[in-house]
């Protein structure tokens, strides 16, 4: 068996390159900087562009602008940088921009501990921009998963035309680990839907021009338009787009817009846009439920964790079973949208749910919401849900998990 000895940052950069990433803009920040360095070194080799921007706002701004030319951008930062990304995350949602954002979490608040692992940005990335619209967030829990889930992030960003977060932490990004190279699994990476390059033939039917995206005559087309960039039909379907520099004129706007990309306050059109931004993610949540369910039918207790903390959890699960004590473990790879089926399927049959995370209890809110709602609907008693939290800069240890197997 051939192995490698590398860190998560290298695996993320490799995953990005394997996914066709050809644009990176970032600003140095511990503990995300190794990704910036890799991407700036590597992108010229594949004809891509990497730039150290003047600040985080410009880093994400450059990525969003570049994405509109058809490239696959990525940026990487830490919590303080996500704060500066916030307004532009909203723009990326509104503009339906494929964009991968790596958040290498460090302990907060504010500057916090630059070299201290933490998982305190879990709710922040979900609710970190105005309006409350959904994003996608994935959390690898091993170096090999950093490689695979980065590819998945690009796949989802492209196919759903939306910002996708990769949540790791200082530990995952920096710690050296041994990887069996067979564990580098490539995920399929799709492409944003595109309007055909050539105009349809016939171009006009019964005096009405033909929409290049649908192939159908469409009287709504304006003189300069060959397709309607924001015609959400059906409302949860991802709309084909065309890159700047391609044959079709495309409008992109931060403001509420109609099917042409013109500013509008027409309530019906605004509702359709806002429904689209929500439903194109939420109606497809089942297609992005990733995780590892390691369940034992006789176990009373289910551990749920993600990222670095899931590493300690998986060790604790192994040790508990070796000691003859059954226990189940659920490693979440998808955090947003909440993988409801994955979680409820794992929870079923357990009396105690331990949700472990390196913060003061953030994702447990989602577990509680889901499990209590499910129990209420089924008119059954819900399991006990307990948080295993830590926010002192140290990792949650396997011993902490083991101490909770029996309550």
């Amino acid at each position, binding site marked *: *068996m*051939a*192995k*490698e*000895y590398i860190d998560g940052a*290298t695996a993320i*950069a490799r995953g990005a*390159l394997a996914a066709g990433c050809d*644009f990176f*803009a970032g600003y140095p920040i511990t503990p995300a900087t190794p990704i910036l360095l890799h991407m700036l070194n*590597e992108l*010229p*080799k*594949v*004809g891509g*562009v990497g*730039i150290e921007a003047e*600040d985080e*706002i*410009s880093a994400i*701004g*450059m990525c*969003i*602008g*570049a994405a*509109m*030319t*058809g490239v696959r*951008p990525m940026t990487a930062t830490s919590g303080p940088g996500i704060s500066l990304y916030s307004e532009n995350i909203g*723009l990326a949602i509104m503009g339906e921009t494929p964009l991968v954002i790596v958040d290498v979490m460090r302990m907060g608040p504010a500057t916090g501990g630059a*070299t201290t692992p933490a998982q305190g940005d879990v709710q922040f990335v979900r609710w970190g921009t105005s309006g409350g619209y959904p994003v996608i967030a994935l959390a690898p829990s091993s170096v090999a998963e950093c490689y695979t889930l980065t590819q998945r992030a690009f796949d989802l960003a492209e196919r759903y035309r939306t910002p996708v977060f990769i949540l790791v932490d200082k530990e995952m990004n920096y*710690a*050296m*680990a*041994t990887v069996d*190279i067979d564990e580098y699994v490539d995920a399929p990476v799709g492409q944003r839907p595109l309007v055909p390059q050539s*105009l349809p*033939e*016939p*171009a*006009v*039917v*019964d005096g009405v021009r033909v929409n290049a995206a649908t192939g159908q005559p469409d009287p709504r087309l*304006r*003189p*300069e338009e060959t397709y309607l960039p924001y015609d959400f039909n059906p409302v949860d379907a991802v709309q084909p787009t065309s*890159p*700047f*520099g391609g044959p079709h*004129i495309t*409008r*992109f*706007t*931060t403001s509420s817009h109609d099917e042409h990309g013109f*500013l509008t306050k027409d309530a019906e059109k605004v509702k359709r846009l806002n429904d689209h931004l929500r439903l194109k993610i939420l109606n497809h949540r089942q297609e992005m439920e990733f995780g590892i369910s390691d369940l034992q039918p006789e176990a009373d207790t289910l551990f749920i964790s993600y990222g670095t903390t899931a*590493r300690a959890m998986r*060790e604790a699960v192994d040790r508990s079973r070796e000691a003859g004590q059954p226990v189940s473990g659920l490693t979440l790879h998808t955090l947003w949208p909440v993988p409801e089926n994955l979680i409820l399927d794992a929870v079923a049959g357990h009396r105690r749910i331990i949700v472990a995370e390196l913060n003061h209890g953030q994702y447990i809110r989602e577990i509680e919401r889901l499990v209590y709602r499910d129990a209420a609907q089924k008119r059954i008693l819900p399991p006990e849900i307990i948080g295993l939290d830590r926010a002192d800069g140290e*990792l949650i*240890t*396997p011993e902490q998990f083991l101490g909770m197997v029996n309550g």
Partner: protein
Amino acid sequence: MAVAPIQIEKPRSTYKNERPFPFCPGCGHTLILNHLDKALTKLQIDPAKTVIVSDIGCVGLSDQYFTTNAFHGLHGRSITYATGIKLANPDLNVIVFIGDGGTGIGGTHLINAARRNVGLTVLVFNNFNFGMTGGEHSVTTPHGAITATTRHGNPEWPLDICATVGVNGAGYVYRGTSFDKDLPDRMTEAIEYDGFALLDIWELCTAYFVPNNDFGRKEMLGLVDTLGLETGLLHHRQVTDYAHRMRELAADMAGKPTLPLKPIETAYPNNVTRKFHLVLAGSAGAKVRSAAKLVGYAGVMSDLWVTQRDDYPTTVKTGHSISEIILSPEEIRYTGVAKPDALVLISVDGLKKAGRHLANMTEDDILFTIPQFADAPTKARKVILDPKKAGIRVTRTNLALLLTAAALRELNLFPIDAVEEAVQRFQTRFADQNLPVIAASANLL
């Protein structure tokens, strides 16, 4: 079904669409945008190869009235989107519409785009106040002027936009007014210009600045003189735009393999039967992490699973440097170390930081250290290594490797040959320095 072919395009007589501009009567925006339409028409520019990037404010409405591609983004950030577009596709014509408000909030982007000479055409619609939000003062409001936020007169002095970008390297810089007859020609030049081009175009906000200050065309022209500013073409330098320059500089990288796999085949046996925790505690800048990495590579070559987590201050070259290494016959999940089986204590910085580890260690564990720390507070068995016996010159930067190599010889987790091969394979540049150190470590035992 009546079917018609695609029509052949005629020369364009305008790049505006049929919708009328929405601006107040007398607003300078209408004049400037009509000048731009003339410039685009003169150039017969391909609208599909052209992107208008608009900032926020009344000017942010403007992109909707042209038949080109359009990008309407956040306040002050138009330059960042435009830079991304231009870097990703240098063949596009990228024209930025920004007001004096956006220039203020996005000042750093403006300066950096000028400094880099990103090939943008930036049109500053400079009407000395925020028109959209009610006539508040901006970075270009003249001293003493009345605005919604300077009711007693503006106590600040205006930003000289042209001087700011000019002194920072912008290739093409022009200052004028919306009334200038030669504006279409200057815009044509600016669009065709290779580097960063900025036109600071002064204009009237008839909703706010004009009535608040009794400010008309004559007063605006007079303001140029009052402020002692030059107008017209201020800079026209020969530059290469940033997108092309960065590609040229990295051209020889093309086609090289990206982050290739570095598979490590098993070449050595090991004596590790359970997880073994080895901690190196020394000073930042003294090659502690580098020594730890060698242990890792050697361990993997010896069919072990290895993890390494490092702790050091952000200053990198001062203070402590602690590397926690786990060597295991099985895959390692948790990378933390609760109690070291062995600790190599290298310096005072390391001693200060390793207190918890030293306290947790028992008689079954081993502390490797130099005579200076013979009294280190721990129950662990101590192996004192005297660098004076090494027979080589021991320095701040080779002590960590010297002691670690000696510890590895004593611990016999895997052959020391594995460490030597790791140096040759993974730290090739330092092989000449490091191999003699590993050899000399035998003299310490």
